[in-house]
């Protein structure tokens, strides 16, 4: 995996990307702030969200078994998948059993995480993304850069050009959002009506009732989950809530935090199968893929509380400049910086815990109060350091542990310092864009001794 600083450098040089990101994140950020301010008990809602999720993590085993039984009782099939390969195999087997060479998909991070589309393609099944933004990315061979607004790095004139190359060849097309949406609608309607199998992720699973919930804006998700006769849903095991009543908390927190809406346009709930209404065969895949390992870490496990609202991305000063691709994962931004290293193992995402200035804006907006800065520090403590860095930090700990040694080091640094325009070693990365004032002729403590006589 390319390190974050390297990937970020490329993104930072793309002025169109910087402009698109700035516009989009600022707009959503402001909208969120407005609608959150309307809710008098917002802080209590956040506390409730955090408490419910903490309870789910403490008793996840029990809730999962309860959920499985509820889904089965309602006529659904439940599959347990330890990793991506097992989950993908289940979906492929269902498609094959129904002779489907095409499936329609709801936008889903979980299926992106396990690279379901690629796995299906390898078995001769083409997965069609039906979320407007996901469709754009799929047509362009691109990938998501934002949890909620996957094509945030694209603007409408770029999308018009793409459609003219792919699904609207030779047609008249402006960059009016309505016209672009209509083009996608015409293309997708046919796919919805012909699909034998629909595939989705889900926002919540209710242990008590076996109900699965998908929250979305476009209605394409509802078509995927209702039109095809067979539905497969891939659900990360952390997405459970204990009771139906708990949804009350999250259905307030999620839309306001994510799109800055009071209520999301479409909330689809289904429980197993219903005679004569919607899919008559329902498969649920419960995905682990590293989650139980995260659960075992007392500090890190709060990353599993995430409800994928993306508020932390929109306020993040790092994300809003680099965009999502620099994070090298379907989970970008601050939440990605703590989730990806835990899911994949920190040795496979070493630079991510450092991709933050620790400004704390993410923690402030998180609807379930995930203390992202705290988890970042926790992960930094676990990360393997270079020998050079360890040596420097150990030496500094010794210097700071002894005031006389510290004073000698101050004098040495003042003697050895170079002109402000060029620092030595890794510190040169400071002076590449910033001046550094030369050290004062007298440290504070020297001044104090001189003025006040120690």
């Amino acid at each position: 995996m390319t390190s974050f600083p390297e990937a970020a450098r490329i993104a930072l040089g793309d002025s169109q990307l910087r402009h698109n990101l700035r516009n989009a994140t600022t707009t959503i950020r402001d909208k969120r702030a407005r609608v959150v301010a309307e809710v008098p008990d917002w802080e209590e809602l956040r506390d409730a969200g955090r408490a419910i999720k903490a309870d789910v993590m403490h008793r996840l085993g029990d809730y999962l078994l309860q959920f499985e039984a509820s889904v089965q009782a309602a006529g659904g099939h439940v599959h347990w998948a330890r990793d991506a390969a097992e989950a993908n195999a289940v979906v492929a087997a269902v498609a094959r059993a129904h002779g489907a060479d095409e499936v329609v998909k709801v936008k889903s991070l979980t299926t992106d995480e396990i690279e379901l589309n690629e796995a299906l393609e390898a078995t001769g099944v083409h997965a069609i993304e039906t979320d407007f933004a996901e469709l754009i990315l799929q047509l362009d061979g691109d990938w998501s850069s934002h949890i909620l607004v996957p094509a945030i790095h694209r603007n409408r004139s770029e999308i018009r050009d793409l459609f003219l190359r792919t699904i609207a060849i030779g047609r008249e097309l402006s960059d009016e959002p309505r016209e672009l949406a209509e083009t996608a609608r015409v293309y997708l309607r046919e796919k919805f009506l012909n699909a034998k199998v629909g595939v989705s992720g889900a926002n919540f699973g209710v242990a008590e009732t076996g109900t699965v919930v998908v929250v979305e804006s476009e209605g394409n998700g509802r078509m995927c989950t209702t039109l095809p006769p067979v539905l497969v849903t891939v659900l990360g095991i952390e997405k459970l809530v204990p009771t139906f009543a708990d949804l009350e908390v999250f259905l307030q927190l999620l839309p306001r935090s994510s799109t800055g809406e009071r209520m999301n346009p479409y909330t689809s709930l289904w429980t197993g199968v219903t005679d004569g209404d919607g899919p008559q065969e329902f498969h649920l895949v419960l995905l682990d893929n590293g989650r139980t390992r995260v659960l075992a870490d007392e500090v890190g496990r709060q990353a599993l509380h995430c409800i994928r609202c993306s508020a932390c991305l929109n306020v993040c000063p790092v994300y809003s400049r680099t965009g999502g691709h620099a994070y090298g994962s379907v989970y970008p931004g601050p939440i990605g910086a703590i989730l990806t290293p835990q899911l994949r193992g920190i040795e496979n995402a070493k630079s991510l815990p450092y991709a933050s200035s620790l400004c704390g804006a993410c923690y402030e907006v998180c609807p379930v109060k995930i203390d992202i800065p705290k988890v970042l520090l926790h992960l930094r403590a676990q990360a393997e350091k270079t020998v050079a860095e360890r040596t420097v930090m150990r030496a500094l700990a010794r210097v700071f542990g002894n005031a006389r040694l510290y004073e000698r080091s101050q004098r040495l640094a003042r003697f050895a310092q170079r002109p402000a325009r060029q620092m030595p070693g890794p510190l040169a990365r400071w002076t590449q864009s910033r001046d550094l004032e030369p050290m004062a002729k007298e440290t504070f403590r020297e001044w104090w001794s001189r003025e006040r006589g120690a």
Partner: protein
Amino acid sequence: MRIGLFVTCLGDTLFPEAPKATVTVLERLGHEVVFPQEQTCCGQLHLNSGYRDDALALAGRFARIFDGFDAVVSPSSSCVGAVRELSPEAAPRVFELSEFLVGKLGVEDVGAYFPHRVTYHPTCHSLRVARVGDAPLRLLRAVRGLELVELPEAEECCGFGGTFAVKNADTSTAMVSDKCRAVLSTGAEVCTAVDGSCLMQIGGFLSRQRTGVRTMHLAEILAS
């Protein structure tokens, strides 16, 4: 009140004017200021770099050195935040200068005169870790001759973040570049804040760009 002055290692070494000004302000208000010579670093550098054990050892050292004062005051919200995180026993007595003046002493007018156009950058750790609120703004509004202009997108990080500025130098530069654009848009002569490290980042960029705008620690304005 007998106040222990915590100057921070960066303040001691790189920008001693801020702790000197802190002494001036506190003494002007009639307090006894003591500088324990044994003090070095609070442990924040090690904490933020992933060396928690070293950080805890340094924080323990800090707590011993500053034991027995009525209050410990520092011209850095970031270091105060680190002390609160690392050393629960020292935490209740440790204050950032502006929160101490406004919150503990109930003083807003410290008798300063500074006839310049000034914009205030609320640092991340002053807002979200030490939570000093609007104390710095209250103090600035009471300074005679000072024209305070609002900074656009004020609450956005300047991109310092300790080793972040070096480990992610390009992203850090993009952040400080936007911050400085906001500073310049105010037409201010001086950008002030309660953290010397953030001012080093903003000031370093303003200087490299030859903007002619300077940074000053809040304490220096209050001492003038």
